């Protein structure tokens, strides 16, 4: 019979805290950057210039159709060889996470905008609004509501994806758990605690996504 010993693991609680904080920073940073990248890619895809559309599409497919772990390893180990400069694990981590999530955000944003009836754009144009005015005052306010559930879900995945930075020794929660494990030789307790911490962070978020989805269905 296995005898649980959370006490030993809890001695290293400060290491977990560092992990949680780092995970939080990488999540917020990569989501913020990802939104900017996603918006740019989304409007590039909706643009009337074919070159922009192709460029954005290529970027999206590249990042959506390769595993994030491979991207992280490539950015950290392979890219420096190509460029001849070293890249810190922070830079490689934030860059890949942001580009990765941005490619999915772009699709979510585009879907939300395209889901708005074209009569809305026509009605805005009919009172003399420009494309930008119609987008900011009429289309986006409606589209954001439609995007919200998918956006939150993708962001939940993003929190979990930061754990892949373990592979390049970023001190996020999974990596710090492995540190706790090697210090205490208590993998069962350490990784169970890590899983619980992720769950406590993410469960409220999925509930919020569900809430928005229900509200949206009601208002339709």
């Amino acid at each position, binding site marked *: 019979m296995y005898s649980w010993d959370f006490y030993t693991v809890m001695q290293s609680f400060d290491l977990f805290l560092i992990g949680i904080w780092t995970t939080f920073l990488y999540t917020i940073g990569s989501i913020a950057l990802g939104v900017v990248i996603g918006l740019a890619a989304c409007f590039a895809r909706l643009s009337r210039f074919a070159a922009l559309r192709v460029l954005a599409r290529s970027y999206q497919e590249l990042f959506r159709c390769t595993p994030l772990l491979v991207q992280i390893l490539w950015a950290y180990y392979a890219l420096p060889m190509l460029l001849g400069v070293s890249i810190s694990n922070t830079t490689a981590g934030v860059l890949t996470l942001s580009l990765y999530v941005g490619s999915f955000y772009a699709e979510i944003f585009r879907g939300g905008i395209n889901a708005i009836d074209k009569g809305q754009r026509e009605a805005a144009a009919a009172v*003399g609004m420009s494309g930008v005015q119609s987008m900011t005052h009429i289309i986006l306010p409606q589209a954001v509501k439609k995007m919200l559930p998918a956006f939150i879900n993708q962001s939940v995945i993003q929190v979990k994806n930061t754990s892949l930075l373990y592979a390049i020794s970023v001190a996020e929660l999974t990596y710090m758990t492995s540190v706790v494990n090697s210090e205490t030789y208590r993998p069962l307790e350490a990784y169970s605690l890590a899983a619980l911490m992720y769950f406590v962070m993410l469960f409220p978020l999925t509930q919020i996504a569900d809430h928005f989805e229900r509200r949206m269905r009601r208002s339709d």
Partner: protein
Amino acid sequence: MTEPVIAVRGLTKSFGSLDVLKGIDLDLMPGEVLGLIGPSGSGKSTLIRCLNMMETPSGGRFTFKGQEVTTRFRGKGARIGTGELRRDVGMVFQHFNLFPHLTVIDNITKGPRIVRGQSRAEAEALAMDLLAQVGLADKANAYPSHLSGGQKQRVAIARALAMKPDVLLLDEVTSALDPELVGEVLAVIRRLAEGGMTMVLVTHEMGFAADIASRVIFMEQGRIAEEGSPDEILRNPRSERLRSFLSRFHG
């Protein structure tokens, strides 16, 4: 001689290889109420949508109050853009196209505030005035989803009027309404006609067109087939085609 508000010469419109408008000449005079009738696919909806450049014509000349209009949003030199054109040529759609995320009053004030730069107070005063005219003053703070079809369309008319347009384009504005709601919308349009508003309406309400139109155009296969007073067109049709078209609306 008075100048036409909108004048088009040789207007054409093609969608791919399909020629929907095959050379339309039209002068819309101030104060005129022009009815566009014709079978579906005759091009009447495309024509009315070309009159505010919602549909970009493929060819022909287009002037608004004597000024040439470009197909771009912004004008260039002496030519005005579609943005300026649409400020002065309002449109009401078959499916209302109200903005669902805005209250009735915000639906109406959005255009004047953003496009004309009116203050909120100024735009809201005008909007309340217009809502009273269409009989919906008590709905100012309601959202469109809480309105009936007839009420939505009356709000849509108020929204177009808030821009103080020179011309109002009405594209089958009663076609999506339950029959018992058609009357309230027609009553609003009738009052506008009596007030001297210049209007173009695509309609299937022949009786109504006969009543308020000052001129009726019968379109067929992308061309103006017949035009004249409602008496000539609707009560004494000349061509066999027009007679058979009209017979479907009687008895």
